């Protein structure tokens, strides 16, 4: 793989954010990449907060225009750093609260005044009140899904460029399919497709899983400013996803 494309593949979220907030010649493409990576998690949060699909799409687009494209979040991110996921989640939550406040101000009688934050929480703006299926859970599931998808794309490129289609297919059927829809395909079905023994399939999968794990951890490290935060970030995500 050429050095330039590898560099682009492994560019971290924070690298992209800094570049997007700068006046560099690549700022626009960096901004598009950050936006594309973040869109599913933002949409998931808004949708799970009770908005119908069409409105959730509009609000997601609005968030991207008002917060991303106006570079408010990017400039703030550069100042505060820390975990990208936490920053993004807070920004979406604040954006929805702000939208709700403005909508309420426009549609309600003024004598009631602007609804205080605690009142907004009681009527459902605060997703924590939703419990297991909260907007945070939806956001985090999409965030992790995005990381897994991105790492899988890199693994696919690496394996296919090495001519190892079997390893990629075994990984896709045994790991990715399970991660995304909870189902998997047995070795008995996979092995004959590639003329391999079941044990060889398992050994190939172990190698692929290790490569994927290494890539995924790279992706995770890219979302935290301090590498020592990685363990805490993984623990927190696992807890939020309900797998611990």
């Amino acid at each position, binding site marked *: 793989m050429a050095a330039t494309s590898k560099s682009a593949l492994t560019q971290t979220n924070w690298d992209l954010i800094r570049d997007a907030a700068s006046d560099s010649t690549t700022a626009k493409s960096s901004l598009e990449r950050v*936006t*594309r990576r973040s*869109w*599913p998690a933002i*949409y*998931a949060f808004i*949708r*799970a907060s009770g908005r119908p699909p069409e409105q959730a799409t509009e609000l997601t*687009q609005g968030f*991207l225009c008002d917060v991303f494209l106006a570079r408010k979040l990017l400039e703030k991110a550069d100042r505060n750093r820390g975990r990208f996921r936490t920053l993004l989640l807070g920004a979406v939550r604040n954006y929805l609260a702000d939208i709700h406040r403005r909508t309420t101000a426009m549609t309600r009688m003024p004598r009631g005044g602007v609804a205080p934050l605690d009142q907004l929480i009681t009527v459902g703006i605060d997703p924590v009140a939703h419990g*297991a*299926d909260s907007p945070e*859970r*939806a956001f*985090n*599931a*999409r965030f*992790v*899904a*995005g*990381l*897994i*998808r991105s790492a899988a794309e890199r693994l696919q490129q690496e394996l296919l460029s090495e001519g190892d289609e079997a390893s990629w297919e075994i990984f896709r059927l045994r*790991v990715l399919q*399970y*991660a*995304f*829809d*909870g189902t998997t395909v047995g*070795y008995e079905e996979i092995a004959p497709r590639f003329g391999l*023994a*079941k*044990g*060889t399939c*398992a*050994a*190939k*999968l*172990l*190698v692929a*899983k*290790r490569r*994927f*794990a*290494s890539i*995924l*951890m790279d992706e*995770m490290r890219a979302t935290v400013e301090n590498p020592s935060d990685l*363990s805490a970030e*993984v623990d927190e*995500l*696992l807890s939020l*996803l*309900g*797998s*611990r």
Partner: protein
Amino acid sequence: MTHHEEPSAQSHPESSRSLGDTLRWAFELDSSPALAGATWLACEIVPSARDPFEAILAESTTLGALEELKGAFKMLRTTGTTSAERSLAARLYAATIGAALVRHATLITTQRGESLHRAFTELQSDPSMPEPIRALASRALDAARSIT
């Protein structure tokens, strides 16, 4: 700006757990000891086993499963990430051949004579191997003598 929505199941609790499972093992694999890879392989092929030694030693492990284990450990001998893991895989490879010979009276390798004798002898004398595996190697040596 248009975006394709990812599968809706991703926000479902069951799928969230699947994503979490993937995240957890990826994080744990990133820093796994030598035995972890062999254990994972053994459990993929013999799900009731808790580690590779148990998979090899269990009376219920079929000849077919031993052949699959042999293929997996053979590959791990070269793909293992550390020399310790590759060395362990070589020992496990010999142990599966020994188990097939002792329990099923079948030689599942093209190796013969000196190389087979050396593999079982090294397995038998390796202090890092569990005692039942070393005892298996001893019986395999006897069985190998009768066929060579």
